[in-house]
């Protein structure tokens, strides 16, 4: 396994000073304005709260504005929340009960790299060489199909543990060979 302590640059980049001071202040102001607009949305409930806190005022104001509280809207929203929850959770539970632990899909044989090459219209020998290369340039035709390889690392491809397993023949793949440039 690899060493977790190997350092590299900070994961999170928090460098507000990279932006100009005018820019930073402009965005702060913009955000404050956005908060003001957001708080404006709460005016109805704030008004209602203040009326309720002053009971006599609240009673007389509500008499003046009988339609002030849009009860229908909130009832509709509650119904919408209820319906959305019921639909989604019923569907999710139905699928969980119906499919959990069961796999109805036919097991497919794993696709071979050769099949991939054939599907992409690439010459099998070229594809085989590409799979062995550690560093290579791929030349393509106008349809972006690889048609040739250029350059390449003359060294034998470095063995990753999975390749070491293959080179002993345990995974039934072609033996490694040195790539000629």
């Amino acid at each position: 396994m690899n060493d977790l302590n190997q350092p590299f640059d900070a994961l999170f980049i928090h460098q507000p000073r990279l932006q100009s001071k005018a820019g930073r202040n402009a965005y702060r102001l913009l955000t404050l304005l956005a908060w003001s607009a957001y708080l404006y949305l709460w005016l109805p409930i704030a008004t209602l709260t203040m009326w309720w806190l002053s009971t006599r005022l609240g009673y007389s104001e509500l008499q003046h504005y009988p339609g002030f509280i849009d009860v229908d809207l909130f009832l509709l929203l509650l119904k919408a929340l209820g319906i959305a929850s019921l639909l989604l959770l019923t569907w999710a539970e139905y699928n969980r009960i119906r499919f959990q632990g069961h796999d109805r899909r036919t097991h497919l044989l794993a696709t071979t790299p050769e099949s991939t090459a054939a599907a992409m219209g690439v010459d099998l020998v070229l594809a085989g060489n590409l799979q062995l290369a550690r560093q290579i340039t791929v030349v393509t035709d106008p349809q972006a199909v690889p048609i040739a390889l250029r350059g390449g690392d003359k060294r034998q491809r470095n063995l990753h543990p999975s390749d070491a397993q293959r080179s002993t023949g345990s995974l039934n793949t072609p033996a490694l060979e040195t790539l000629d440039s």
Partner: protein
Amino acid sequence: MTLDEWFEMFGRFAFYYPVLMSFFWMVGALYYYVRRERGQPNFRHPPVLAKTPPVSILVPCHNEGETVDETMAALALQQYPLYEVIAINDGSTDDTAARLDALLDCYPWLRVIHLDRNLGKANALRVGALASRNEYFVCIDGDALLDPYAVSWMILHLTSGPRVGAVTGNPRIRNRSTLLGRLQVGEFSSIIGMIKRAQRTYGRLFTVSGVICAFRRTALHRVGYWADDMVTEDIDISWRLQRDHWDIRYEPNALCYILMPETLKGLWKQRLRWAQGGVEVLLRHTTGMLHWNARRMWGVVLEFMFSVVWAYVVSAMILLWLVGMVIPLPEPFHISPLIPRWNGFALGLLCLLQFAVSHWIDRRYEPGVWRNFFWMIWYPLAYWMINMTTMVFAFPKAALRRKGARAIWESPDRGYR
């Protein structure tokens, strides 16, 4: 229906669509959390894998000279026993090629493939798949830092059953120096993470995250690998896999730290490309989705269609509202107020609730995310407004784009560093 009734209906749709979607996301995300995350080990302690098949990590690179060293250094820390990294240099014009060649001496598991010209990410991935002899691929961007345990978490799903065709991970934003950076931090954790969980609860995903995903070769083979004429090959491959009845999983423990644009221009370009890609995929796959055997994708397709309609409806309402402030407009074209009284309060409350739910679920992956609270106001606003604006421009762009034209790279904005 009279004109008044149409406007009334559109007005209700403009309000209730985001409200309803927020409900679905919150409920779905909470269900996912309770079923799959609560009580589970920390992301640094994946379960012991019964099988550890060899994996190829495909890293398509285009002009990643500034970041490729970090990316490879992060890959060196992978806590997975059998893997190789195939970096595909896709016609870079900076020093990416030289840097990758130099890294060959540092990392024995690294392989480098240079393409003769800029062929786009999809073709880079295709060549990467061609160059690999493994059944499982993990695909990351050339400027992404993969968490040491991400491969383990994703392979856990791919080896759990033959139906699993792909897994998408959990991208976290690295750059948070500016408002736009912090906005996206919250957007990704509060909204996108929530959406992915809710979609998994439903059973189908709109897309894998192209920056961190894993695939089974057999699944890719059946659907013809990545299409090089789609600007978002990740959305396209996700829809094709799911139409072929492969399961795509979401694994929030598979973390990846990414750089996102921190300029308005960069953000606009990126989100426009995402919106355009979504529309292209919708236009290409809609006919195929009409079949009964594609019924499980109908929820995803309908949701996206509604989002396109919503973008145009709200844009029209905002435009009429703005015009109405200057020129008197006849009813029902006169929109005032833009957000009616209690509807506004309901939206405000929902925004707060959504943030609270998403933060509660997401805190295990980034405990300090609450520090962005001051910027929280932007998250839902940015998500909906950015989506709306980009969709208005993206739909005609996608519809008019020349069919079959190859989607190639443009060097992205990677923020302040």
